[in-house]
């Protein structure tokens, strides 16, 4: 009986342990499911908010407008129907509040009870009108033509150059400026951090004596431990005003500020990983080099660095990954303008910062909400690729050593 009990509890515990170890796998799977379910939903939606229609006069030959055209029409950048394939006639914009230009309040009625008919009549009477109003006020026997708007396409989403998710009547969901902004800031960060980090890694693993190393190592770990929001705060009160002053800019919140802060944050990753790799250089190799009369410095750049190059690469890539995924610090210092950056002295906006800044305002399950989840998917895929690359690099190294 006792052995049975013992056996049973052994099995039970093993089951419990196994269950715990599957939780990470389960989490990754769940993250993928939830993120992509919501994120891909964006391609099932129309850029015009649910509950609104865009209508034309029935004589208008135009049947379809893209979301960019819609936006330009309502921004009055397109003012003639011929620009979107219609007759040569100027465009008349009509929004719900414009009804007062056509009808008096009495005609509309106190509780807007006659508003649907009024809108119908306006659209009917003006052949070159484009009207945007709520389906609530759509008349039962509406004579106009309701415009067919395409669902958001992959091409529009990934190639679009404008990100105005709350624009009326048609949301602009081009992620190109956000992707470029993210890469731009991260690239700047790694350009700053890589030389510094490598120098420190070489110094700590090859040059400094054990005492200095013992002091520096925990300091680097401390640098990794400082919360990102504190980095952001530091960047906001020190680096941003400094940049503004040095480059004489109207605002200091720029891509450069983001790159500097992210660069500092990426340092510990680069240093720890490449230092580890350098310290793993076989002693025999180094001593062989020294015995041939090479100086310590020659040994470092001819033996140690080439030997540990895959570790250094892994560190650099992971550093980029850190920078791409970083949210708070970037959100606080880059100025968050969703435009394609041309210089490092312009405000930029990254993918994580966009999610953090806008998710609070996006209505649950709406187009904007789904678009932000789609951004999360992009971020997830980028970091997954980075992780797999690093793994591939370090596995290849092991294989070569055998």
């Amino acid at each position, binding site marked *: 009986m006792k052995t049975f009990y013992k056996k049973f509890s052994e099995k039970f515990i093993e089951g419990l342990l196994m269950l715990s*170890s599957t939780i990470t796998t389960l989490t990754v799977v769940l993250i993928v499911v939830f993120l992509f379910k919501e994120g891909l939903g964006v391609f099932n939606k129309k850029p015009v908010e649910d509950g609104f229609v865009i209508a034309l006069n029935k004589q208008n030959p135009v049947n379809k407008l893209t979301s960019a055209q819609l936006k330009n029409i309502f921004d009055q950048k397109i003012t003639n129907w011929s620009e979107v394939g219609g007759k040569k006639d100027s465009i008349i914009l009509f929004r719900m509040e414009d009804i007062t230009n056509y009808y008096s309040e009495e005609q509309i009625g106190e509780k807007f009870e006659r508003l649907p008919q009024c809108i119908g009549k306006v659209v009917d009477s003006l052949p070159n009108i484009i009207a945007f109003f709520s389906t609530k006020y759509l008349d039962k026997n509406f004579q106009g033509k309701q415009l067919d708007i395409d669902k958001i396409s992959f091409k529009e989403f990934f190639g679009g150059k404008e990100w105005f998710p709350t624009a009326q009547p048609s949301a602009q969901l081009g992620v190109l400026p956000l992707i470029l902004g993210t890469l731009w800031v991260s690239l700047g960060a790694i350009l700053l951090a890589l030389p*510094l980090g490598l*120098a420190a890694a070489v110094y700590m693993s090859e040059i400094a004596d054990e005492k200095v190393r013992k002091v520096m190592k925990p300091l680097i770990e401390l640098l990794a431990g*400082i919360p990102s929001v504190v980095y*952001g705060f530091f960047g906001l009160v020190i680096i941003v005003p400094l940049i503004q002053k040095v480059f004489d800019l109207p605002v200091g919140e720029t891509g450069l500020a983001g790159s500097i802060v992210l660069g500092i944050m990426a340092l510990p990753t680069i240093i720890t990983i490449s230092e580890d790799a350098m310290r793993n250089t076989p002693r025999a190799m180094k001593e062989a080099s020294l015995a041939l009369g090479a100086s310590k410095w020659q040994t470092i750049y001819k033996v140690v660095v080439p030997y540990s190059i895959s570790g250094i690469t892994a560190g650099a890539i992971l550093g980029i990954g850190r920078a791409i995924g970083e949210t*708070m610090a970037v959100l606080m210092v880059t100025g968050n303008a969703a435009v394609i950056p041309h210089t490092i002295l312009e405000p930029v906006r990254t993918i994580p910062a966009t999610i953090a800044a806008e998710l609070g305002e996006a209505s649950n399950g709406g187009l904007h909400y789904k678009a932000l989840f789609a951004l999360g998917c992009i971020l*997830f895929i980028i970091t997954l690729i980075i992780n797999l690359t690093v793994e591939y690099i370090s596995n290849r190294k092991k294989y070569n050593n055998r």
Partner: protein
Amino acid sequence: MKMPDENKLAKQKKRNQSIAFWIFRLLSYLIVAILFAILSFIVFKGIGVINWNFITQMPEEGMTKGGIFPAIVGTLCLVAGSMLFAFPVGVLAAIYMNEYVKDGIIKKIIKQMTNNLAGIPSIVFGLFGMSLFVNKLHFGDSILAGSLTLGLLALPVVIRTTEEALKAVDNTFRHASLGLGASKWQTTRSVVLPIAFPNIITGLILSIGRVSGETAPILFTVAAYFLPKLPTSIFDQAMALPYHLYVLSTSGTNIAESRPVAYGTALVLIIIVLIANLLANGLRKYFGKKVKMN
């Protein structure tokens, strides 16, 4: 043919080396200087703000005066909640990985997935926590949802440090115990875990430091902009230190006047991280073994 002057060559070699070494040394010192610049800036600006009232009172007058007590309590709740989830699960998972499962496809998959989880940006955890805990499971913006989200974020850290700690235990202990007729679990519980315990605790402390500073995962799962009362249940919203600092420095009602409070909050955060790091390092030194982070 003229032979190169050996003496000159050696001299040049030496000069190159000393120039290169000096550059490396200076750059390394520069990094340390950056660290100290950040730390000392926050310490000097924040030290005047922090006093007993600051850490025990509610925020007042649009967060420009008063203390940060609810934010401290909120962060403590989140840390405790996330560790209640991540620590047992992480340690058990690591035990399974290191003591039970044999090398093979399952171990490979679990390892790969743990690595992937570790690489996912914190804002993605925030999105996930919002869609699963807040919306799907109807926890609402709550300490529960925030703790679980943070717990998932900390899980890979706990697993990794625990695995390192278990790996550091010499195999002869296991063999001796098994040889005496102890079962696998008895060996793990009475022999392996006690030896690995200090290093596991070190990992726990480091993940506490990490969790207490995370902002992005709690933005949409728990954090309240301003809430001058303490949470009473795990389904309440709460303020948290990192989010408080973010709000104060970017979107507060009066940014200039709330700056001192922001400095104070940053300092409290830094102090928590410092204590966690010092404690972890002290433990490491005390037990003479090293848990590798990352």
